[in-house]
Each structure stands twice: as structure tokens, then as C-alpha cells.
């Protein structure tokens, strides 16, 4: 097969992987700080996808413009969810947290099903079917814009954690829960803030994904699973790891589909996960626990 075909597919895989990375980043942020595994991750993303779909079909608002408002809505949703529902479960056994978030996931997907029905919906922007040609490379315009937005959003999040006081306080909570309490940080509020930030990542990713894929109320679980694969590959709790994991999984799926058979795309993504778990259980960029 000609080299340019591999190149085209690899570029497509990397671009999709960057959006996947942003989605998984939300999961990693939440787990890294709050130590709660968000089983409603994909469903929360579906909410953002429907916000984008409805805003486009009703008001023709481009998902790229909706990126920040949609992330803000999901931030409020995540903050409220943590403050009202999840905080009381923080000290409870993990299985209780899992069940709580699974229940939240089921409620979200069924509510969306009731409101929007089961049909797939898409956002057909003016550039939905456009592509750029650079020599032998044909780059999907929607994927390129979505990936660029994902990179900008991720950079802003990194900057927030590194350069703001609140970001530093959140990192302190993640590093040493007791220490954070001792120095007088409002840990519960910071947890809610973190959950909100994780949800905002999912909101941004979901909004961008509507440029690339169709939306149905039942897509949530597959994205939750994908997010898990990515963060475990990249390193649970590591922000750069989530992005790297996203790119790696996107690229693996694309090249495996091209080299072998597309039906086996997911199998190769899981094979990468198994290899990482075998040879680097903490993930590619994760820290080994003491």
C-alpha cells in the first residue's frame, strides 16, 4: 500500500486521538484529585454533545463557538454533582461510589433518550465535508479544527493548574489530602471545583466530537470505556499522560485498521492497554505508587 495512505490515516488517527485525549483528561483530573472513578464520564460527554447538536439545529451556533459555553455548563453540572451527590460518598467504600456513578450514568442516558429519542443526530457545519490538501495529504477540516481546539483547551487547563493559586491548591489536595486540610484548604470545595473542571474537559471534548461523529443518547458507555483505556494507558492521574494515551490509542486504532482489518481496531487498542499493564502498570507517564 502506498506510503501516503499510511500518512493520511496516521494524521487522521492523531487528530482524533487529541480529542479523545481531552475527553480522557477529564477522567484523569477527577481521579487524580478526588480519587473517584467517574463511571458517568461518557454520559456527561453525551450531554455536551446534545447541547452542541441542539444549539446548532436551533440557532446554527458552530460547535467551535460553543466550546467555552458548553464547557461552562458542564462545569456547573460537575460542580453541583460533586457538591450535592458525590461528596457524601467520598469516605464510603469504592463499590458504593461505583454504583452511585453508574446510577447517574443510567439516569443521564435514559433522560436523553426520553427527550431526544434514539436517532443519530449530526452537526452539519459549512466545513463538515471539507478537507485540506497538502501534497499527498488530505486532512479532514472538522478533525483538524476539533483537534486544534482540544490542544488549546488542554494548554489552558495545564496553565490553570500550574500558574493559578486555585490550581496549585488543587494539586496540593491531590498530593497530600491531610496536609491540605492541615494548612486550611477547603478540600470539599476544591473537590467540587476539580470535578467541575473534569466535567468541563468532557464538555469541551463532547462539543468538539460532534464535528467528527454523530450523536445518540446511548453512545456514553463506549466513550467511558475508551476514556478508561486511554487514562490507564497514559497513567491514571497524569494530565500529559491522558493526552499521550489519547494520541496513542487514536493512532493505534487507525493504523491497525489499515494494516489488518478495521473490525479489529478496538482489539489492537486493548492490546496496547494489556501491554502497558504488563510492562508499565502505572501507565506511560504515571507515577508508581509507594
Amino acid at each position, binding site marked *: *500500500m*502506498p506510503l501516503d*495512505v499510511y500518512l*493520511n*490515516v496516521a494524521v*487522521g*488517527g492523531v487528530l*482524533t486521538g487529541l480529542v479523545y485525549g481531552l475527553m480522557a483528561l477529564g477522567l484523569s483530573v477527577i481521579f487524580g484529585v478526588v480519587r473517584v472513578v467517574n463511571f458517568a464520564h461518557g454520559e456527561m460527554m453525551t450531554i455536551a454533545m446534545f447541547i452542541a447538536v441542539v444549539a446548532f439545529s436551533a440557532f446554527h451556533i458552530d460547535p467551535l463557538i460553543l466550546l467555552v459555553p458548553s464547557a461552562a455548563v458542564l462545569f456547573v453540572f460537575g460542580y453541583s454533582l460533586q457538591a450535592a451527590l458525590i461528596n457524601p460518598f467520598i469516605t464510603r467504600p469504592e463499590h458504593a461510589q461505583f454504583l452511585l456513578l453508574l446510577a447517574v450514568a443510567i439516569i443521564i442516558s435514559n433522560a436523553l*433518550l426520553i427527550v431526544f*429519542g*434514539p*436517532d*443519530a443526530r*449530526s452537526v452539519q457545519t459549512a466545513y*463538515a*465535508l*471539507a*478537507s485540506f*490538501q497538502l501534497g499527498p495529504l*488530505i486532512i*479532514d*477540516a472538522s478533525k483538524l479544527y476539533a483537534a486544534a481546539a482540544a490542544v488549546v483547551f488542554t494548554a489552558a487547563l495545564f496553565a490553570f493548574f500550574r500558574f493559578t493559586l486555585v490550581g496549585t491548591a488543587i494539586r496540593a489536595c491531590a498530593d497530600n489530602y491531610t496536609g491540605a486540610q492541615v494548612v486550611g484548604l477547603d478540600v470539599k470545595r476544591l473537590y467540587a471545583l476539580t470535578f467541575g473542571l473534569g466535567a468541563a474537559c468532557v464538555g469541551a471534548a463532547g462539543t468538539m466530537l460532534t464535528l*467528527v*461523529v*454523530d450523536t*445518540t443518547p*446511548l*453512545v456514553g458507555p*463506549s466513550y467511558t470505556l475508551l476514556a478508561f483505556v486511554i487514562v490507564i494507558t497514559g497513567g491514571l492521574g497524569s494530565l500529559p499522560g491522558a493526552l499521550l494515551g489519547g494520541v496513542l490509542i487514536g493512532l493505534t*486504532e*487507525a493504523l491497525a*485498521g*489499515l494494516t489488518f*482489518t*478495521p*473490525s479489529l*481496531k*478496538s482489539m489492537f487498542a486493548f492490546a496496547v492497554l494489556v501491554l502497558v499493564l504488563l510492562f508499565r502498570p502505572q501507565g506511560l507517564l504515571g507515577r508508581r505508587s509507594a
Partner: protein
Amino acid sequence: MTRKFQPTFAITRRTFAAGAGATAFAAGIGPFNIARARGGALKVGVLLPRSGYEAGIGQDCQRGVAIANPILKSLGYSELAIMNGDTESNVGTARARAEQLISDGAQLLVGAFDSGETTAIAQVAEQKGIPLVINIAAAPAITEQGYKFVFRNFPKAPTIVGDAFANQKEVFATVGKAPRTVVFMHVNDTFGTAMAKGINAMVPKFKMPYKIVEEIAYDPAARDLSVEVAKAKAKNPDALLVVSRLNDAILLTREMVKQRFTPQAILSMGPGWYDDQYFKALGKLSDGPISFVPWYDPHKKLTPVLQAALAKAYPGVQLNTNHIFTFEALLVAADAYKRAGSTDPKALAAAIRTTNITNNVSIGPGISFNAKGQNDKVKDGAIQNRGGKDVILAPKQAANAKPEWPMRSYRSRS
């Protein structure tokens, strides 16, 4: 003086025994209640994938259900009491819903579009002794099990493939051109796999003018088919041979546009490419694909009746396979009920076995079933998307247009 209270319904041993006896008798005759005398409408449980990834097609089939009763009445049949069941595009759910509908009183089942789901429902129908009239499902095995209560008015995968090849040759002969190479793309579900097996076996047998240079199987619920299209494009084939569902047909088309790839022809041997949703989602880009599917004969008397009813109930929706065969399954049910004069499942099954309906819609001489419960006379048509509508290219007796070949480039349409 105090009066002793006398309960008016004191339970004595005698009344208890009588009550228990009556209850036992009622319970004892319960199973025979199914064999009720004719009186009310026949209760037909219609199982379709109304949600999940096949929801678009399932809901399209439902339109055939929605328009059926007034037409059946005009044909002199009794109206049917429809009980809806959603298989959720899932085999396990299909089985559970079939059991549920039967326990809720369904006297006959119709469904279920998907071969995997229909296989599960057929097992339940046979086990419970309730007739199942399959609307759409092509996997051959369903009517090869020796079932007594399962009937299919839809061609089996090998018949679809055989008819499709015959119709392809007719189209190639009409345009005086034929593709030399094709890439074969198909979904990897029960239907897609059965079709792929049939196509691979029959291409040499039918001496088709083309060679399959690449076979690409993919998940029908896939979110992104860019790799699949890139792989197909890399082979630079004259045509694409596809076995799809609706969502993936739309995804494939969008990807071909983005990757600037227009083959001479898209030859579809399954659903998706002729659906109204396909036209609606893609507009001008929907023109060109040729589908080889069981279709309606525009020259039959009942066809305009069905078209008019559909246009009235769903303006802008065109008659297609989903409506035709779902309606015909209900026609079989109504006809059997009329002739059986009973809702007894055995009597209904016996009546279905002797069906001989010539006033129908699909291409072929009519509806009748062989010893295996299969209508082996139903035929495929070749249809092409043109100007947002389907025109019929083959077979000759049903054709109403000439083929447009090659397809207009996607890039020239924007």
C-alpha cells in the same frame, strides 16, 4: 342481651373446597384460552429495533405498520390489534421482548428486521407455538431449522445475492460498461457476514465481470469509517460493492466526500443507501448509489395504494423495502386470520402455510410459502438514487428508468 356477630361471608370448609376447585379449574383451562373463538381483533406483536443503532430502520419499518390497518380493511380483512415491542437493536432484548409479548397475549408475531434478533425471536416463537411472520431478515439458517411456526416473506441472503448479480448484469448490459475491480465493504453483523459468505461464493459462479480486490469488514455501530474508506480508496477500484446499514452508509458517503473519492459506481446489496434518512442526511450527495434489494413492483395494483397511504401519513417519505415487507407481513397475518377463522396458533400457522396472495406489492408472482416456511418466489430489484428519489432499473418487468453511469463526482456537486 348481646347479639353474636355473624359474618356474611364466613369461609367454611365446603366453600373453601368449592373455591379451590373453581380456581383449579380456571387455572387448568388457562392454557387452552389461547385457542379462543374468533371475536376480537387478532393480537399481533410487532418486534422491531425501535432504538439502538438500528433505530432509524426500525422506525421506518414501523411506518409500514402504521398505515396497514386501513388498507387491510379496504381489502376485506379484519383490522389487527398491534402490540409493539422494541428489540433495542439487541439479540438478548429481542428474545426477552418476544417472550413478554406472548405472555401479554400476542397471538402472532411479526419482525424483526435484523437477522440475529429474528433468529432469537424465531426460537421463542417455535418454543411457545406462536406463529412468527418475518418481515425482513435474510440469514438463511432461520428457515432451515425445521420450524413449524416460522414464515418468511423475504428472500434469503443467497437469493438476494443471486438476484443482485442477475440485476447487475442487466444494468451493465444496459449501459454497455462494467467495473473490472471492486472493493467489497460490509458490516460484520449476522446479516453482513451471511451476505459476505454468499457474495464471495457466488461471484465466480455468476461469472461477474469484476474481481474483488479487497474485502473490508467493519462494525455497523462504528463512529468513524475514515480508515475503512482510506483503505478502499488505496485500491483505486472501479466500484464499491457494499453491504451496509443506514448509519454506516451515511458515514461512508461523508468520508468519501472528505477523502475526495468517487468510484464509478456504488453497488449496494443491503439496506441503508436508499433510505429516506440517507436522502435527508446527504441531500445532493445521496444521488448515484445503485441498490440491489427486494423492492416494490410499480406496475402492481396495490403499490399505488400503499404509496398514497404512506404519502398521506408521512409526507415526503418514499415507499421502500422496510414499509413494503413490514406491510406484507401484516397482510399475511390478516389473510391467515381470515381463512383460519380463529386465533388458535396452530390454525393460524396452518393457514399461513397455505397462503396464496397475488394482490401484493413486492416484485415476484406473489406470497406463498414452501415446506420450510420460506417464500421462494419473492424477487430483488435494482434501484438508483436520482434527484432525491429511487428509480427502478431492473428487472425489466418492473423497471421505470435507465441507469446513470458513472456516478457524478462528489466534488462537482457542492
